[in-house]
């Protein structure tokens, strides 16, 4: 019988209470399960996350890590057969999980928004660009059609779209991937949300377009003093765009730290392995392989969910799930052995 402790909000509260920036988002012990025919998929199994106002935070993990489900859970748009079964999500101090659908709808847009990975499917193919934007503006901001159209135009300019008047009347399929993603960003920002989730926003884009979109996000975040959660599997994007990062694996938090701390001195074997497995344009190195595969979320491994692939795994790792422990101020890790291990970072 696994005995698992979860990160109590007390740790975080004590951590950050004396710092000035206020907590915008506080996720504690979140469990989101998918009830499928094949079994219960534990997409998120005791996940915690803290985001302060104005921060750019990264959520890094591979497929099955639960990073997208986290964003969906906060916005309460988890698709069926998924359901949030436990935990707490506090936004601006208020508990989101006890809000009704109506109350949540008022938050989506003006308070929190999300940019999805594939703009081809996240934009409505039968609406013009203008409609995509004005619909939301008229709904949340009570603008007239003319006012909304004007705002839509300025939004397009803001996200760097050339000839915005022409683009307003266009349909998504007439536009390139990069442009579509800019429009998706414009839509997400149209009501000036406080919190923006960017779920792999550049994965489907070409390299040079990716650079454009990442620069745009950086610039917008600074300009609007927006809090951004960057969800990605790309450690390069994490290094470039975020100040704090949470590493997720199979629905659980492995490590949380400031980005530079994470890269320089990771404390979790998975983090170390990820850093070593990722190639870089800057140098040719031998890649270290992480053996095995992403685990089955219906029957995850016992104890530490990473133990089957961990080269340092010991007996206790198989039997007990490691709690999230504090390494130092702002740095937390879920590993039984972090005190003994000497792990290598990058740089």
């Amino acid at each position, binding site marked *: 019988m696994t005995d698992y402790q979860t990160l109590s909000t007390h740790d975080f509260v004590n951590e950050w209470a004396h710092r000035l920036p206020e907590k915008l988002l506080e996720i504690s012990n979140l469990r989101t399960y998918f009830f499928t025919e094949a079994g219960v998929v534990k997409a998120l199994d005791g996940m915690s996350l803290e985001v302060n106002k104005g921060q750019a935070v990264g959520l890094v993990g591979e497929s099955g890590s639960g990073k997208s489900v986290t964003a969906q859970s906060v916005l309460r748009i988890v698709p069926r057969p998924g359901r949030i079964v436990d935990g707490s999500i506090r936004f601006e101090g208020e508990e989101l999980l006890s809000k009704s659908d109506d109350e949540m709808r008022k938050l989506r847009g003006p308070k929190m928004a999300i940019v999805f990975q594939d703009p081809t499917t996240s934009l409505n193919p039968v609406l013009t660009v203008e409609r995509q934007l004005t619909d939301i503006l008229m709904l949340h901001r009570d603008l007239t059609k003319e006012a909304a159209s004007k705002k839509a135009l300025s939004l397009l300019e803001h996200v760097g779209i050339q000839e915005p008047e022409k683009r307003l009347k266009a349909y998504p399929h007439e536009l390139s991937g990069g442009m579509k993603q800019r429009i998706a960003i414009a839509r997400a920002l149209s009501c000036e949300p406080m919190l923006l989730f960017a779920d792999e926003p550049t994965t489907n884009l070409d390299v*040079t*377009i990716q*650079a454009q979109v990442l620069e745009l996000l950086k610039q917008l975040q600074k300009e609007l003093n927006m809090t951004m959660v960057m969800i990605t*599997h790309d450690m390069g994007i994490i*290094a470039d765009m975020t100040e704090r990062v949470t590493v997720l694996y199979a629905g659980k938090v492995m490590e949380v730290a400031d980005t*530079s701390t994470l890269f*320089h001195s990771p404390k979790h074997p998975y983090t170390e392995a990820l850093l070593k*497995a990722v190639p870089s344009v800057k140098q040719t190195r031998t*890649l270290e*392989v992480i053996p095995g595969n992403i685990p089955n979320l219906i029957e995850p491994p016992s104890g530490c969910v990473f133990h089957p692939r961990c080269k340092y795994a010991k007996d206790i790792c198989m039997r007990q799930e490691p709690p999230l422990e504090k390494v130092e101020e702002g740095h937390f890790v879920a590993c039984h052995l972090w005190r003994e291990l000497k792990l290598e970072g990058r740089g």
Partner: protein
Amino acid sequence: MAEMQTTKDPGHSILEVNSLVKYFDVVERGIFQKKKVGDVHAIDNVSFRISGGETLGLVGESGCGKTTTGKVILYLEKPTSGSILFEGMDVVETFENGHQSDRKVLRRRMQMVFQNPYNSLDPRMTVYDIVSEAFAIHRNIPKSQWTDRVYELLRMVNLEEYHAERYPHEFSGGQRQRIAIARALAVDPKFVILDEPVSSLDVSIRAQILNLLIDLQRDEHLSYLYISHDLSSVRQISQRVAVMYLGEIVELARADQIFDKPLHPYTQALISAVPVPDVDHKATRIILPGEVPSPINPPQACRFHPRCPYATDICRQIAPRFEDKLIDGHFVACHHADKFV
């Protein structure tokens, strides 16, 4: 664009591509007839060589023609013009007018691993069938030895013998890609085209496959054409790299030359755009304006000039020659390349 100047590299080239051109027709369908209204300039005058045991990386963004190049080399698409010489044999001639036995030889010596591991394996065939299909087509191994050979191939890609009985949908993406590699190796090829083999795989799995490919290259003395938009993995596996833009090769050099000292403005922008997993690295991104233009009506003269930060009049009027007048073995097609040396 002029053809590639003869290089000083002697190493027996296993593959020689010269002035390869591939245009696709843009067609309007009427009720009774079709009218050709234009061309998609997928590949326009591409030339390069690959030596035995070497990996040439082919990079570029969508629409640059890199995947089409791979398909044309294997004659899965007919080239519009140009020549492809494999171990001295004229590929196009052989497929169009040659003997069936010669064609089969080419099909054995040149192989391909495709991009999408979810689509590149026939869902109705077992792994055994998939890997042994090569034997059925080429009949180079007596039936009694098929099972042994299949098991041997599976072991080479770090899979188990019992996997042979299973169907593709029972495997993960990384495992499927291994099966695809085993299938390509079943015919004992000398040259394998790898088309984005790790792009759809998870980060932790990519290293497994890349390392496997590198090991296999060493053990079986293979040559690779590694096609990818993921520059980081290209650097990992390639000795030389060719950069494509809108159907043309704009730069070709050793991997370290391309990545550390790129001469073509597009290459510079491309490499600077890749996020580096290193917190101490200060990203000085060169942001290119606009979108990647369509290969249907590519810009005149230097195709990159509309987006190039250094474009001048000559760039708009005269197409730059592809040559290595500056550094030995480093080919560029740019009027202003000398500025960057």
